[in-house]
């Protein structure tokens, strides 16, 4: 009896080993597990490939709900109401509220980084630097510049100012991206991150290495919600505009993109500005949530965190960034009982996701909610206008 279990155990271990050795088998099993889920999603019409649609999708109730113009509006209204109601009536415990705010801030960070790293295909590793700029600028405004009474009222302005200064800095970082790409640009952003950190460490007026203390807690759930929605909306608009397509074409082939009349410098600059603006906004919100900031909060490890969220969720996808930021933040909190071991566990999850889905969970896919209607829905085209071009079809 005992022997038998031992044999069985051995067989099981053997199977496990084979499973690990043969990645294709593992992938197959993962496929088998994920397959039904994916089919379900497909049936519901939730997924779509980025920039295209599967013509064969049958319309369904869920599909209708998810593609309905009003869904987003209703969801927004509900969310906004909830963001007011939750802290007002203490609907969920404050700890969860805090996590919710972290999730939102991380969503802003991940989405804005995704613009440069996912859509444009650059590798910026200094996102926390922009965050630091936003955090410091806004905190200086509310703590030192604005009178105490006005802090409440001027908070959105302070946040926007943090974003704006970060955007200006982003403009400067964009300049090297005209000439160099890839690893060299990665170095520029990395060095930028470290320079910003040590710059703040050396300015005594903002507390030097000790940091800036006594920031009032102005970040509330409604504000976080509004800024998150704003960032998602604006970045989505950007991505589906000519500039967004320009960004994508730079990722694919910069020279060809130039030949096709895309002003690559302009587009790169815009992408960096928008991205760093929202990083600054996230930093400002973060500063007024934590109530103190120091340079070490924005070092390269923070940048790595944001990178992990982006690549976990999936590059080139808004839904991916939202998913990545949420999963990462919530999982880290949920695993708190594990202590330090959760920090061992998370990188393993990242590595496994990368091996099985190299572009992240949602890489280059999108929820229809975030797509432009006409991009997934093939409307019958209007009759072609009679122009000089319209001279019938080409010979075959």
């Amino acid at each position, binding site marked *: 009896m005992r022997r038998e279990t031992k044999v069985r155990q051995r067989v099981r271990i053997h199977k496990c080993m084979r499973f690990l050795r043969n990645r294709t088998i593992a992938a197959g099993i993962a496929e088998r597990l994920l397959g039904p889920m994916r089919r379900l999603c497909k049936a519901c019409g939730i997924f779509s490939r980025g920039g295209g649609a599967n013509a064969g999708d049958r319309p369904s109730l869920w599909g209708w709900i998810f593609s309905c113009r009003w869904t987003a509006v209703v969801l927004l209204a509900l969310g906004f109401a909830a963001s007011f109601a939750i802290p007002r009536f203490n609907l969920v415990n404050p700890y969860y509220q805090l996590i919710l705010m972290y999730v939102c801030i991380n969503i802003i960070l991940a989405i804005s980084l995704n613009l440069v790293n996912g859509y444009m295909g650059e590798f910026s590793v200094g996102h926390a630097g922009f965050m630091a700029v936003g955090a410091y600028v806004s905190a200086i405004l509310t703590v030192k510049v604005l009178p105490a009474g006005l802090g409440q009222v001027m908070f959105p302005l302070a946040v926007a100012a943090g974003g704006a200064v970060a955007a200006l800095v982003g403009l400067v970082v964009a300049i090297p991206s005209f000439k160099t790409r890839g690893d060299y640009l990665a170095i520029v952003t990395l060095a930028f991150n470290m320079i910003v950190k040590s710059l703040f460490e050396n300015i005594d007026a903002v507390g030097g290495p000790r940091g800036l203390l006594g920031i009032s807690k102005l970040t509330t759930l409604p504000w976080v919600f509004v800024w998150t929605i704003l960032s998602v909306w604006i970045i989505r*608009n950007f991505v589906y505009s000519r500039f967004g*397509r320009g960004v994508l074409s730079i990722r*694919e082939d910069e020279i*060809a993109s130039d030949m*096709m*009349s*895309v002003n690559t410098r302009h587009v790169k600059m815009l992408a960096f500005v*928008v991205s760093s603006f929202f990083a600054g906004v996230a930093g400002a919100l973060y500063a007024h949530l934590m109530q103190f900031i120091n340079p070490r909060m924005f070092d390269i490890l923070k940048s790595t965190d944001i990178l992990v969220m982006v690549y976990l969720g999936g590059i080139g996808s808004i839904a991916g960034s939202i998913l990545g930021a949420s999963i990462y933040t919530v999982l880290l909190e949920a695993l708190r009982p594990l202590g330090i071991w959760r920090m061992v566990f998370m990188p393993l999850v990242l590595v496994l996701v990368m091996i099985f889905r190299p572009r992240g969970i949602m890489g280059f896919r999108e929820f229809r909610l975030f797509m432009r209607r006409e991009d997934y829905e093939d409307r019958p085209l209007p009759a072609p206008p009679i122009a000089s071009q319209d001279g019938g079809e*080409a*010979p075959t």
Partner: protein
Amino acid sequence: MTMLQIERLTHRFGGLCAVQDFNLNLAAGELVGIIGPNGAGKTTVFNLITGIYRPASGSIRFKGKELAGKTSNAIASKGIARTFQNIRLFKDLSVLDNVRIAHYAQTRYSALEALLHAGRYRAEERRVRESAMLLLKTFRLEKHTHEYARNLPYGLQRRLEMARALAIRPALMLLDEPAAGMNPREIKELMDYIMWIRGQFELTILLIEHRMRLVMGICERIKVLDFGATIAEGRPDEVRNNPLVLEAYLGNEAER
């Protein structure tokens, strides 16, 4: 009207003279071919016209305006489009997006309008989409609108590249070996295509090709390059019998 006027264009890679004293006058509506053995500097001429390289000396004028020193995208938005020897589509984007991207310079809305979905944004986007769909339709690619460019068969990729180039509304089209990798039947089709788009889109065309059949069949004028220098120029039948050209292609009598 002169479409393109190139004078004494010279370019060097290190010590190698890739293009030397290249002169070319293209009248509007002309179809001119550049031929020459491998490494003769044909593609370099294209790269100089489209601003990828800065010429060492010489001038390139397009509709009377100097192009040297302008960025590639500025040159493209003035109305010079090109295709590439080795197809350079945006492979991981949809066929539609490939064509839409080329509408960049003609789309009239600012970054702020794009970010806020306001003003001219919607109308312009609709126009771009319609114009792109029209192009796809004329090139019989509408069935593949939402496919990734990567997944198209080779012939369709070539066609898409042409549609994409036409989307910038060029007056001058540069075709870099459009027949590369095609069989004789496809080349015949391609010749019809080139003639057709020339009439349809009122283009001036400059093309590089190896296949004598294509060049001799459709070009009105031919320039022959060898080692960066122009060795012959004229109507197809003139060039065909030029001893210098024969020598460049086949080697001279003694070597044979």
